[in-house]
């Protein structure tokens, strides 16, 4: 199983779309694609919607990228993590290290809700 990576740049940063499996055979190419993007210093989103499996080596690669990004002060967010991949990441503790798009969206939603509530309260 191979891995394809495509970059998409927009005003807010870069999106890297990965397709396939991230394992010991493919994680090297992923690392080569990601590290230069981290060094650019713009916010980076990794879209895993089309990633079916992330092996132990794959998870470690993502964590290495994340550590590099932390060091460079670059925000890295994972998007489109499938249920199975999310479960594996959660059970093995890797999920604790990452910002995931779903979590970011949920936090933003909660914040907006709280803001609306406060506004409504002030209006009363």
């Amino acid at each position, binding site marked *: 199983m191979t891995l394809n990576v495509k970059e998409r740049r927009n005003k807010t940063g870069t999106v890297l779309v990965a397709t396939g499996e991230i*394992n*010991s*055979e493919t994680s090297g190419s992923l690392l080569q694609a990601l*590290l230069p993007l981290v*060094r650019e210093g713009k916010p980076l989103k990794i879209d895993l919607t089309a990633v079916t499996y992330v*092996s*132990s*080596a794959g*998870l*470690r690669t993502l*964590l*290495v990228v994340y*550590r*590099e990004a932390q*060091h*460079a002060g670059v925000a890295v967010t994972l998007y489109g993590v499938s249920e199975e991949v999310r*479960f*594996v990441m*959660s*059970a*093995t*503790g*890797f999920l604790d*290290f990452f910002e995931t798009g779903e979590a970011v969206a949920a936090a933003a939603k909660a914040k907006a809700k709280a803001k609306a509530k406060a506004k409504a309260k002030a209006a009363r």
Partner: protein
Amino acid sequence: MSETQSEQVLRVDAYPTHEVGGYRVRAGKPFPFGANVVPGGVSFSVFSDQATSMTLVIYKRGEPEPMAELEFPEEFRTGSVFAMTVFGLDHENIEYGYRADGPYDPVTGHRFDARQVLSDPYARLIAGRDVWGVEPDRSRGYQYRSRVCLQDFDWGDDTPLGIPAEDLVVYEAHVRGFTRHPNSQVTAPGTFAGLREKIPYLKELGINCIELLPVFEFDESDNPRSNPETGERLFDYWGYNTVSFFAPKAGYAATGRYGMQGDEFRTLIKDLHAAGIEVILDVVFNHTAEGNEQGPTISFKGLDNATYYMLTPEGYYFNFSGTGNTVNCNHPVVRNYVLDCLRHWVADYHIDGFRFDLAAILGRALDGTPLPNPPLLELLAYDPVLRHTKLIAEAWDAGGLYEVGNFPAYGRWAEWNGKYRDTVRRFLKGDAGVTGELATRIAGSPDLYSSRGTAASVNFLTAHDGFTLADLVSYNDKRNDANGENNNDGANDNNSWNCGAEGPTEDPEINALRTRQMKNAIAILFTSQGIPMLLSGDEVARTQQGNNNTYCQDNELSWFDWDQVDDNAELLRFTREMIAFRKHHRELRSTAHPTGQVRENLGLPDISWHGERAWQPDWSSESRLIAVARCGTGDDDVVYVAMNAHWESHDLELPALPGGRSWHLFADTGAEAPHDIRTPGGEQELDNAGKYLIGPRSVVILVGRTDDPEML
């Protein structure tokens, strides 16, 4: 490239020197043993004293036939260690093993057979039993496959909790059994990840240490029996037959099918630590899964049988473990193996302590005789890496060696106190003549541990082995037919009492008495000096339908039934409050055995004994009532515990209290819930200060304190 990313260091040993079987290789480093990822490849190192040659066998992951067989060149051997680095291996996608050639001569102890592929005793991951209960394909030549893994888990700021031994409240649990029941409501039932989801329950219960039944790789399908009543297959459910000592059981991990059991288990440990809970592993170094001469050859037998096992002069296996073989623990090589293994679990898994199954075997010499100064026990007691871990011995074995109170401790070892269990059980069921010994046991067994302090005693009433607490008060006799051994297995000296009916009953009086007896047991356990250990599920009256040996039962007989958390909320609340009470009162956790010395601030001795009359304990053979009052250094209050195993109530005269203090009621197991127990600090002052009527078969706990600190 940022400065945090390690530069590739140029190393001379990152280049091959030889070619073997089409692979580029070089001599490896003898230490550390096992398979280790090194620049450019994987270094393999294995010990065999008598092998004439050694071959590394490499498989593509999951394939039945090897992809390579690389014989170690003679020049790659250092002493009796074969070491080789193989370049260009994708460590994530291979499995490996060894063929060891040498003499086959069982009389001299050698059982080499180069046809067998052997598992690496130092393998940190094992493939082959990845998902619990899946029937293995036994036609495959190599069943338990060693795998290579990185040891780069990110522990964050996880550090040992270092909870003082005397403050521990141990909870003995089975990884799978704890959440396997469909009503556990966890994402992955029966796994490390499932247990992780139940941490809030453990925290709320108040325990601060979980002791896990064996988690080293074992083969649950290694049980040929089936249930004679239902025909269902039986398992090796407890897991006391270890296949591989450095590898966490894949079938206990939801991610085992991906080979991520190591990270999943570490994540559980990290989160338990974050919740203030230490982790102790139940470890089995007395025997292995290889059995006797009839058993399978998995690893040790084929690598160096005469080193690893105690053998008779005729070359048969000594059987001090009752399971076929006995590990040669005090052989210098095996000693180091055990040490390496425990260091691995402490350093790479942040384990806080170990409970050693049938630990008396660890004190036997190479010919089986007990040693006065066993080098293995000394080695573990003083080892730098293990220095602050808890070491707990099950201080007996199946060969008749019983060392409770005499285990060679080197100031470090605690023991499962079997005498505590037996004495309290006999008292609870109303045996005559037990009060004297009961007093000794609840005071931390000074007769056994006078030089070691109370924390040498792990006090327990129930454990995985034997009746659960609910069954202890519901069955006079074991009901083990489902194990397929004609009810011949399991202990017969249970000291249990069914309260008037055998097994389940609709009789409300009997059921009320059973509940009371369970509360009595819990009240005595948590007010005894020593380390209390609770069997998982006893807090909600978990039953095994009278089966006192569920080693093979992977079903509802063994699983924690989460519906009971609501159904038996009364007992759960009682247990929680008792644990909280223990934490609240240092005098119950004192490491020093009581001496009777008077505490100056209270004018009372550190311990005093009472009967129906204050200061007049009845030690006579017909007495079934004893009360104890404790006050510790620096404590301002007094804890009084009256234990009545008599079937009649008694009027208690309470000892007078100094300086403005009065008696307050914390618990009375004879009272209807919710009046059976209160929250520590919320005790109710007694109306009749000098008297208390204790009901039949009840425990009463009072606190002597003042509600007005000015009075002190």
